[in-house]
C-alpha cells in the first residue's frame, strides 16, 4: 500500500469509528491496532489483513444500524462468528468493517413439543447440543470445530461433520432464519413448519458464505439422541480394497452413522500421537460407526462385520465399550495435530469425490506425491467421499510452498475430473476462489453473480469471496500451517 493509501485508510478509519460510536456502545467499536489484530484472519491464518474497524453489536437493531450505515457509505461488511473457518471467509477487507456476531450467544427458546430451538447466530454449535442434552435431544451436524464454531457460521458454510451421511448437512437441519439484508431490512426466511411458501431461500442462504445477508437468528431442528452407538475398526493391506469395502457397506443397504478412513501415513502419525492401537503396517484403516436402538445396533454391526469379512480386511475389531469407542476415534480426530508434529507446515485440501473413485484417486495422489517430492497424508469422510489430503512441507525451504500449491491444485483438479467438487465442507472463501473457475464455466459464474445482484447489487457483503469475477480467475489461494502453529490448536479437526 502506498503512503497516500495508508493515510486515506487511517482517515477513513477515524471517520467510520467516530460515526459508529454514535450508534453502538463504546466497547462495541474497535479501531486501535492492538484490538483489531485478533480479527485479522480466521482459521486460514496464512492470510491476514486489518479491517477498518470491528463492530460487536448487542442487538438486532444495532446490527441493522451498522449495516444501514455501511450501505449508505459504500463500506464493505464481513460478518464473523468465532472465526474458525478454514477458507478465509471471515478474512477482513481493508476498507471494510468486521461485523462480529459474537455477542449473540443466547439460546432464545427450546420447543420440546416440536423439537426445535431458536438460537442466536453466535451460539456455539456444541452449546446447542449441551443445552438440550437433558431433554434427550441434540443438534446433529457436528463439524470438527464444534466446541468453538458458531451456528451462524455453520449456516453460512453449510457445515457438515462426521455424521452427515446419515443426518445431513446444516441445510437439512434448520427450519428458519432471520437475516438482515444489505439495506438493513429484517427478513424472515422459512417458517416453524417443515416447509414455507415461495422460493427455497433457506437453501439459497445456507452455504452463501456471508454474501447474501447477515444471519441474526436461526431455528434449528433437534433430534432425539441415539440410544447407543458402536464402532468397528478394520485394517486393510490395500487401499483399493478399503475403498471397495466402503462401497460394499453402502451396497448392502447399510447407512452408518460415521464411516472414516485413514491411509498408512495418517495411521502412523496418529498412532504415534494417541496410541489407539492402530495397525501401523496397514495400508488403510476404516472406522465404521452405527447408532440406534440396542437391537438395531447389534443387527447393523453384525451386517457390517459380514461385509468387511467378505471385503478382505486383514483384521477387524468392535470396540468393547464406549471408552474404547472414543479411543478408536481419538486418532482420527487428532489427525491435524498429529501431522503437525511430523512436519513444519501442512496444506489441507477439502475435495469431495464419488466414493468409487477413492482407490484411484489415492493411487494418483501417491504418484503425484513422489513426483513432487512431498509427503501426503490422507484422511477421509469415506462415507460421503469428502477427502482431506494433507500435504507436508517446510515453508522455510526455497520453492517448497510453490510446489505444494501446484500439487494441491493438481489434486483439486483431479477431484473435479472424477466428478466431484473442490470443497465438501470448508467453503470456498478466498482460498479456493480461483478453482471455482475450473469447477464452473463463465455462464454459471455469471448466473451466480446475478443471484448476488438480487440481494446485494453494491457488492458490499463479503466482497471478493466465494464467487470469482471472470476477471479474477487467475489467482490462487493457499493454506498452510507453519511449525504446528495452527490457529485454535485445541480444536479437534477432521
Amino acid at each position, binding site marked *: 500500500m502506498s503512503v497516500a493509501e495508508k493515510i486515506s485508510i487511517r482517515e477513513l478509519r477515524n471517520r467510520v469509528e467516530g460515526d459508529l460510536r454514535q450508534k453502538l456502545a463504546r466497547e462495541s467499536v474497535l479501531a486501535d491496532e492492538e484490538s483489531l489484530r485478533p480479527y485479522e484472519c480466521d482459521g486460514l491464518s496464512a492470510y491476514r489483513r486489518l479491517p477498518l474497524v470491528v463492530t460487536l453489536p448487542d442487538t438486532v437493531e444495532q446490527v441493522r444500524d451498522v449495516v444501514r450505515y455501511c450501505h449508505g457509505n459504500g463500506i464493505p461488511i464481513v460478518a464473523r462468528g468465532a472465526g474458525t473457518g478454514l477458507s478465509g471467509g471471515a478474512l477482513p477487507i481493508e476498507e471494510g468493517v468486521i461485523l462480529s456476531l459474537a455477542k449473540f450467544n443466547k439460546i432464545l427458546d427450546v420447543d420440546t413439543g*416440536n*423439537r426445535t430451538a431458536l438460537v442466536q447466530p453466535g451460539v456455539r454449535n456444541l452449546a446447542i447440543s449441551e443445552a438440550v442434552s437433558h431433554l*434427550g435431544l441434540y443438534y446433529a451436524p457436528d463439524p470438527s470445530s464444534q466446541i468453538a464454531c458458531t451456528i451462524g457460521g455453520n449456516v453460512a*458454510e*453449510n457445515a457438515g461433520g462426521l455424521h452427515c*451421511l446419515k443426518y*445431513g*448437512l446444516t*441445510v*437439512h437441519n434448520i427450519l428458519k432464519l432471520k437475516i438482515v*439484508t444489505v439495506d438493513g*431490512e429484517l*427478513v*424472515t426466511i422459512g*417458517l*416453524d*413448519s*417443515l*416447509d*414455507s*411458501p*415461495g*422460493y427455497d*431461500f433457506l*437453501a*439459497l442462504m445456507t*452455504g452463501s458464505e456471508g454474501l447474501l445477508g447477515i444471519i441474526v437468528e436461526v431455528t434449528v431442528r433437534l433430534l*432425539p439422541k441415539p440410544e447407543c452407538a458402536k464402532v468397528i475398526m478394520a485394517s486393510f493391506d490395500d487401499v483399493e480394497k478399503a475403498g471397495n469395502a466402503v462401497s460394499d457397506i*453402502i*451396497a448392502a*443397504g*447399510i447407512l452408518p452413522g460415521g464411516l472414516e478412513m485413514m491411509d498408512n501415513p495418517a495411521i502412523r502419525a496418529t498412532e504415534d500421537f494417541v496410541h489407539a492401537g492402530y495397525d501401523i503396517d496397514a495400508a488403510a484403516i476404516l472406522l465404521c460407526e452405527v447408532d*440406534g*436402538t440396542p*437391537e*438395531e445396533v447389534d*443387527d*447393523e454391526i453384525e451386517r457390517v462385520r459380514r461385509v468387511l469379512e467378505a471385503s478382505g480386511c486383514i483384521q477387524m475389531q468392535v470396540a468393547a465399550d464406549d471408552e474404547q469407542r472414543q479411543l478408536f476415534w481419538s486418532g482420527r480426530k487428532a489427525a491435524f495435530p498429529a501431522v503437525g508434529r511430523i512436519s513444519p507446515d501442512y496444506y489441507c485440501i477439502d475435495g*469431495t*469425490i*464419488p*466414493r*468409487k473413485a477413492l482407490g484411484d484417486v489415492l493411487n494418483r495422489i501417491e504418484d503425484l506425491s513422489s513426483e513432487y517430492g512431498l509427503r501426503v497424508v490422507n484422511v477421509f*469422510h469415506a462415507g*460421503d*467421499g*469428502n477427502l482431506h489430503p494433507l500435504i507436508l512441507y517446510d515453508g522455510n525451504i526455497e520453492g517448497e510452498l510453490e510446489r505444494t500449491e501446484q500439487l494441491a491444485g493438481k489434486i483439486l483438479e483431479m477431484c473435479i475430473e472424477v*466428478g466431484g*467438487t473442490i*470443497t465438501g465442507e470448508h*467453503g*470456498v472463501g478466498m482460498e479456493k476462489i480461483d478453482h471455482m473457475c475450473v*469447477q464452473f464455466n463463465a*455462464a*454459471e459464474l455469471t*448466473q*451466480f453473480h*446475478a*443471484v448476488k445482484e*438480487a440481494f446485494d447489487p453494491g457488492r458490499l457483503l463479503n466482497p471478493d469471496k466465494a464467487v470469482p469475477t471472470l476477471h479474477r480467475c487467475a489467482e490462487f489461494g493457499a493454506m498452510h500451517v507453519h511449525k504446528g502453529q495452527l490457529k485454535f490448536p485445541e480444536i479437534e479437526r477432521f
Partner: protein
Amino acid sequence: MSVDRSRELIDAVTASIESGKPLSIRGGNTKAFFGGPQTGEPLTMSGHSGMVSYEPTELVITARSGTLVTEIESTLKEQHQMLAFEPPCFGERATVGGTIGCGLSGPRRPYAGSVRDFVLGTRVVNGRGEDLRFGGQVMKNVAGYDVSRLMVGSMGTLGLLLEVSLKVLPAPRTECTLILEADRDGALEFQQRWSQRPSPISGTCHSGGLLHVRLSGSETGVASAKSKIGGDTLDDGDAFWTRLREHDHEFFKGTGRLWRLSIPQASPEPDLDGDSLMEWNGALRWVISDSPADRIRTAAAEAGGHATLFRNGGAETEAFHPLSGSLLKLHKKVKRAFDPKGVFNPGRMYRGL
C-alpha cells in the same frame, strides 16, 4: 426409454426469449390442478427421458427431467433402493421434473427428508438460453450458491430443468402398518410421546377416528416397536400409504376446496369448519373447507406455518400463501436474475412472478 431432447428444448427457450412469448412448461401435466394457472406456449418435457447415470453404491441417480417417476422407482427397487421422500404422482405420467418443480413430498417426508433435501445437482436452461450445471453428484458440496435446491418447488419459474441428480437411500428391510383408534388429541399425544426417542416410525395418518402408523427398518427394531405400540396390523400397508399419497384415500374424494396446512407438528388442531386429515407426525393437516381463505391462512400463520389452496380452489384465490412485502421483493429480484424476460411459467407460482 432413453431420449435426449436437450438441443430442441434449449432452442425452444431461445425462441421464446426472442419472440417474447412465454412458455408453459409441463411434464405429464399431472399437477395442472396445483398452483397458479398455466399460461404461455405449452412446452412438454415428456420424451426427454432416461437415466443419465445410476450408481447404487454412490447412492445417486441422475435422470432427464421427462423421465417417469414410476420408471425411476422401479429402477431403484431392483437394487433395493428408493426415493426416500416418497413423491406423490397424481397420475401415472408424472415426471421427475414436475416432481422437482412442484416440490411435493409424501408420507415419509418428516422422517427421511423432503424432495429438496435429496437434490444433489441439476442441469437447467436459464432465461438467457444457457445450459448450466449446478451442484453435482455428491452430497457434500458447498461450492457456489445452492441453485439446485432453489429450483425445487419453484414451479418452473426459474428455469427449464433438463436433468436432476438425486440422492437415494436403501429401501427399508421390513415395514408394517398398525391401526389404532384415537381422536385427534389422542393421536397428537401418541405422536408426541413417540417423537421423544428414536423410533422406526416412517409414516402417520389420522382421519375418521383411526390413526395409521407405519414402521420401517430392521426386523428386530420394527418388531420391538410393534409390540410396544400394539393396535391391529394392516395386511396391505403399502397399498394404504400409496392411496394416501396419491389422494385416493376416501378423505380426498369430493369436490370441496382442499387446503394443505403446513404447521409445527405439535400444534393443536386449528379451529376450522370442515373435515381434517393429519399426516407428517402432525406437521401436515389437510382440511376440506369452504371457510374464507383469510380465515384459514390466519389460522395456519398463527400456528407458525402456512396454508396452500391445494385443489378445487377456483381462479380467484391464489393457491399459495401470500408472502411478506420484503420477501416478495426478493422473489421478484431472484426471478429476474434467472429469467429477465419472464419466459418461464409466468403466474404459475404467484401472480406477477
